[in-house]
């Protein structure tokens, strides 16, 4: 068993922020990478500059926001089904 106060690098918010910036830089680079190769697409939309990048970001963002909205409709208590069984 380790001590409860074993702090690692990721416990420092500053380090997490660094990782986030690192990711952002990586994203910028991969977005710019579209300049450097020729595409052989099956679909016209693939020709757009940075299509996959934009689609990935917007898709994932929309997914979470829509799912969050769906939760309002779908969410029930944890014991929802068990409780239902006791009714009878």
């Amino acid at each position, binding site marked *: *068993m*380790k001590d*409860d106060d*074993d702090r*690692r690098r*990721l*416990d420092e918010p500053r380090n997490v922020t660094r990782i*986030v910036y690192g*990711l*952002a830089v*990586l*994203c910028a680079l*991969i*977005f710019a*990478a*579209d300049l450097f*190769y*020729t*595409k*052989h*697409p*099956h*679909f016209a*939309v*693939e020709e757009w500059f*940075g299509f*996959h*990048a*934009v*689609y*990935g*970001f*917007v*898709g*994932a*963002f929309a*997914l*979470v*926001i*829509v*799912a*969050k909205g*769906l*939760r309002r409709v*779908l*969410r*029930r*208590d*944890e014991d*929802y*089904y*068990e409780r*239902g*069984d006791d*009714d*009878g």
Partner: protein
Amino acid sequence: MTANPALLLILGAAGVPLLRGLPRHALMAAVPVAGLVLLWALPEGTAPGLQFLGLELMPVRVDALSRVFATGFLIAALLTMVYAMHLRDTLQQAMTLVYAAAAVGGTLAGDLVTLFVFWELAGLSSAFLIWAGRNERSHRAATRYLAVQLLSGLLMLAGIVLRVQSGAGLEFGHLGLDAPGGALILAAIGIKCAFPLLHSWLTDTYPEATIVGAVALSAFTTKFAVYTLARGFAGTEMLVWVGLVMAVFPIFYAVIENDLRRVLAYSMINQLGFMVVGVGIGGALGINGASAHAVADMVFKGLLFMSVGAVMLRTGTANGSDLGGLYKSMPQTAALCMVGAASISAFPLFSGFATKSLIMEAVGQEHLTVAWLLLLFASAGVFHHAGIKIPYFAFFAHDRGYRVAEAPLNMRAAMVMAAVVCVAIGVAPSLLYDMLPYAVDYAPYTTAHVINQLQLLLLAALAFTVLVRTGLYPPELRSVNIDADYVYRRALPQGWRALSRAADAGRARIGPVLRRRGGELWEIATGPLRPGSRVSRPWSTHLMVWWTALVLGAMLLLAFL
């Protein structure tokens, strides 16, 4: 010849409860390996058939399609067996082998009766892996599970009977939706393959299985169904749309689901969606893609279930709301989990990249723009919930203070083996491509493909980061989300109860009134026959004569008509 890897696995399963300690562990590992050796030693083609009850059966047919699936099942069996070695519960170990045998045997089946037998055996043996939880909750879940599996078996049997009656014979080749019994067989497969609205048994019961049970369940039933679909219904256009729905809708559930094993169950439907699209497109590329992705999925989904199972073993929970910070105590499990996550997300150099792209390429060559866009969205989504959410909430996020031991050695060994397979397929796709039913003329590692995939995934990761940092990301909450299982877990039981209550209440209210009115009616109706009433009084003779004449006259009249 009765050389059948499935029989070998069943024999091995019979031996498991008889041994203890090292010999048992050795047997558990040796049986799937022996099965693999036997499978690859079998010549291609159909072994001589046998007569049974007047039916011509062909229990073993080896061709490229059945062999690649059977190979995947046997590898998954080996991984699961290693993962299960720490258990003292021989029931789970033996039943996992029987369950694997059912998947292998069904895959090698050359006729529909053999297929049906293994189809049922798969359902029955796997139910034990849920029952093995040995509590009220798992008992109920296993009962629900078994009911659905048996329903699927019944539908298949009915379809086979219709097919045989129409003279189409028992051979298990391409069936098609329009052939007699085809729709019934497709419905049977649709249940096990978790088609939309038929899917909820999977997300309902897989997370209720034991830790080892969920790993085994994740490999066999659904991919066995994909094989049956690929064999019987390749190129059925409807399946493209079915697969698209499967690929898209579960990711919304996966984002808001708290139980990480249920998240994986939803993501399994999402992956199955890709395979079903591949089968629906058919042709060499579609079937290759479905087969390759099915095999890759057996391993990476198994790896993810293994890592979450290890977390569950050590902490006692798989709820995202209760987990976090485990990378400090379980760094190896965390790393291995991330290999699985990278594989399912189709990161370059991991297996999903090599296999899913075959399906995407098939969609591209058919120029199905809508399908392609939806699958791309589903790809970003799967990275979001399986690739990031699982490792993030289990191992990072908020440190919940768990200071636990690493996973047992055998679990880590199984996870390492699975991770090696994931990376091997990713780095050298030809290992898997060469096994596929059709020759592969496709190179996954082109500049455009690698960059596009990284763009999609990294920017999806950025979206996740932005959402978490801004607090927009929905928190993990202790909750359940209603799904199609609402129908049989809540609506039907409640409806039945409401109906019984209504019937009771109705009887209490209407009963006395009805009885009284009935009595009164009876009084009125029988009144003329009572003593002293007009009919029962003694009649005078001349009245009787009149009546007799009247009746006889009427009969005479009728006779003339």
